[in-house]
């Protein structure tokens, strides 16, 4: 089945008969909601935005204690963040006549560039221009390379894309697992981050071999995995996509590293950090915008995190919160210059397996997401919360999930693991998951073309109900504002106070003369304002 585009003259979606008028209304409400937040975003910067900017201008490396150069720079300039830190780095490049590599070394060895007197503004600006042009060249080449490979191997591409996770903690072990997964049929490899990395206010440096529940996201680890996937992809004649987690206190920096090392997707949600890691909301909103501009500029597909809501709130009762959040995430993403084909909205198969007809409800909602977001590379997540140590039942649940995914034409399918409740996947767990998915994908390939749904049946009615509830919720959020809505616990049943959470001290109001050549470059490239 091809993705069905909404035809202009139709009043309702093709299969479920959802009214376009309502969908449009939801979009308008969402734009109203994000417009208010965007006003705040535009007036602020954060420590990690400044560090991401520095990284994209060449700052890299770490001192002997492992403190990354971008952190060393920004930590010494807390009083100057409002004006933009990058001009001091550019100034140091101009004044010293050194390459970024040489300058980074000196900074790691103690050079304090905040103490160097600012030189001629025009020289700083022309240095900025030079560095931005070099960056643009590097990023454009990455995009070109990726698109070329995708085209070259397009005849071997199947949908849904099979997405699996590696998480050994050791990047070299991850490589083995990732290559094996690709050979078994995986299209996308996500290297999940180590427990608690999202709360680190810096990105560790270099290759790493110690992590638990995941592997550190570092630029070197990105590079190592990228190379491994390119190698195995060329062997298999398929382009294997690499994913990491652009979230937490260093969201924009991870985006910067991913852009430079040609990652293909990023988990990147506008609210996940607030709700699930207790990161301050002002910090998160400001960071997500900058990181999404970076992702958009290199055609990185983002994956949003609505699936998580259904672990802390009930999947049947709160289905509409997922749709509501998808509309909001979409609107934020568009403000950051993302087109639909980069906005991988998330949702999940997370209902209690004991529910009568639960499968029909899941089917309905997955199809609803497909019809409301026809151009988006939807990311569909497997059962997790109700997975238990009963791996046999878990395998059966995953089969049901595979059925819904294929039948409703989802784009990105994160495969369920039979051992979800036990450990991060073993090599064989991933293999069994891929076998299951391949079997179902093939066995029901043309299912949806063969059936139609009763107009007043469970499936059609459910989708309408969820959309209606979502519009109602959007109206309420629109009325009270997103900040208050989160404070009240309207998403994921999690309440977060506005001034609470981590990282608030890293948010700064921009001064009138705020200078950030990377921001200018991104906005220009993405035609933002």
């Amino acid at each position, binding site marked *: 089945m091809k993705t069905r585009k909404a035809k202009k003259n139709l009043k309702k979606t093709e299969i479920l008969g959802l009214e376009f008028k309502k969908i449009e209304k939801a979009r308008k409400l969402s734009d109203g909601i994000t417009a208010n937040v965007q006003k705040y975003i535009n007036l602020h910067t954060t420590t990690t935005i400044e560090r991401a900017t520095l990284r994209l201008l060449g700052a890299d490396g770490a001192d002997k204690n492992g403190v990354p150069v971008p952190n060393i720079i920004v930590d010494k300039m807390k009083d100057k963040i409002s004006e933009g830190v990058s001009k001091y780095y550019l100034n140091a490049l101009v004044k010293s006549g050194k390459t970024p590599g040489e300058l980074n070394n000196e900074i790691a060895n103690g050079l304090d560039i905040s103490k160097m007197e600012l030189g001629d503004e025009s020289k700083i600006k022309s240095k900025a221009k030079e560095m931005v042009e070099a960056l643009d060249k590097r990023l454009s080449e990455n995009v070109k390379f990726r698109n070329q490979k995708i085209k070259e191997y397009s005849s071997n591409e199947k949908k849904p894309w099979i997405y699996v996770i590696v998480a050994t903690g050791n990047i070299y072990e991850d490589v083995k697992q990732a290559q*094996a997964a690709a*050979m078994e049929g995986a299209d996308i490899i996500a290297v999940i981050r180590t*427990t608690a990395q999202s709360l680190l206010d810096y990105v560790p440096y270099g290759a790493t071999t110690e992590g*638990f529940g995941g592997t550190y996201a570092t630029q070197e680890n990105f590079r190592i995995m990228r190379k491994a996937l390119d190698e195995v992809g060329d062997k298999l004649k398929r382009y294997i996509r690499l994913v990491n987690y652009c979230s937490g206190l260093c969201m924009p920096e991870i985006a910067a590293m991913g852009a430079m090392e040609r990652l293909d997707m990023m988990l990147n949600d506008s609210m996940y950090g607030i709700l699930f890691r207790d990161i301050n909301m002002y910090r998160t909103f400001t960071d997500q915008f900058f990181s999404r501009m970076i992702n958009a500029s290199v055609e990185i597909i983002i994956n949003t995190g609505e699936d998580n809501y259904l672990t*802390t709130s009930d999947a049947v009762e709160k289905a509409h919160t997922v749709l509501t959040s998808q509309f909001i995430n979409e609107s934020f993403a568009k403000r950051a210059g993302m087109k639909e084909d980069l906005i991988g909205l998330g949702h999940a198969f997370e209902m209690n397996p004991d529910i009568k007809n639960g499968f029909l409800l899941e089917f309905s909602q997955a199809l609803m997401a497909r019809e409301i977001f026809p151009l988006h590379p939807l990311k569909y997540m497997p059962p997790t919360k109700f997975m238990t140590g009963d791996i046999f039942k878990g395998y059966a649940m995953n089969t049901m999930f595979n059925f819904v995914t294929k039948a409703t034409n989802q784009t990105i399918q994160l495969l369920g693991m039979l051992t979800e409740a036990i*450990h991060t996947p073993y*090599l*064989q767990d991933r293999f069994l998951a891929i076998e299951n998915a391949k079997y179902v994908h093939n066995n029901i390939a043309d299912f949806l073309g063969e059936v139609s749904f009763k107009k007043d049946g469970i499936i059609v009615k459910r989708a309408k109900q969820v959309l209606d509830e979502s519009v109602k919720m959007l109206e309420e959020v629109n009325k009270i504002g997103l900040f208050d809505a989160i404070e009240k616990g309207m998403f994921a049943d999690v309440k977060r106070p506005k001034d609470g959470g981590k990282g608030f001290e890293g948010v700064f109001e921009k001064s009138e003369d705020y200078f950030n050549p990377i921001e200018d470059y991104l906005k220009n490239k993405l035609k933002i304002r």
Partner: protein
Amino acid sequence: MNLVKPYGDTLNDGAMQISFTLPVPFGGKAKECAKLYLEKLGFKKADIVHMAELSESFSFFVAYVKTDVSIDYDSVEFTPAIDKAMSMDEVNAFIKEKIKRKVVVVGAATGFDAHTVGIDAIMNMKGYNHHFGLERYPMIEAMNMGAQVPNEKLIETAKKINADAILISQIVTQKDSHIKNLTNFIELIEAEKLRDKFVLIVGGPRINNKLALELGFDAGFGPGTYAEDVATFIVKKLYEKKVK
């Protein structure tokens, strides 16, 4: 003596199923290797019923085996944290009658752990699977501090609100991170000489009572626990302490 061994379809046939991966290339030799390995483990008869290639250097096996080894069921020692849970109402009546004041409980998922669903299931009003949480118990004052709470902060809060019991949830267990964190907790509370002031309870999918006792806690609860299980333990323990 009650000697038992695994049951397939006939008593004492000793049948078991096993699946595993070896870091060897797929092929006849791999299969033979897998079979010999199972025999080396002591299984009497090993059938490799399925094998698959995971990559150039890894192979996966499904096997059925038979064993001669048996165990004396009567010799197994097992002490659950509680024998039988009281209902919410029974717990309340017990507190009113025997403890005669409200019981104060504080809980959190500690250390790096960001998982709240488990501790919420035990503590929050709504509870889990139609079993109300401790907040709902009229005679219990429950304070849920959420996740990612440092051990120090939990202890400090327990002191401040004069808690009777401290509940800790540990969901992330990879590389034994929970053992380290729980050990650290006990060390901290012993250093403050407060170990005996509180009833200490830990829970999570990889936790059991035996492990909890070994680590120095009063009780441990695993998957499928409800608030009434924990409440029963707490009030009985408090009463026991009081009588002493």
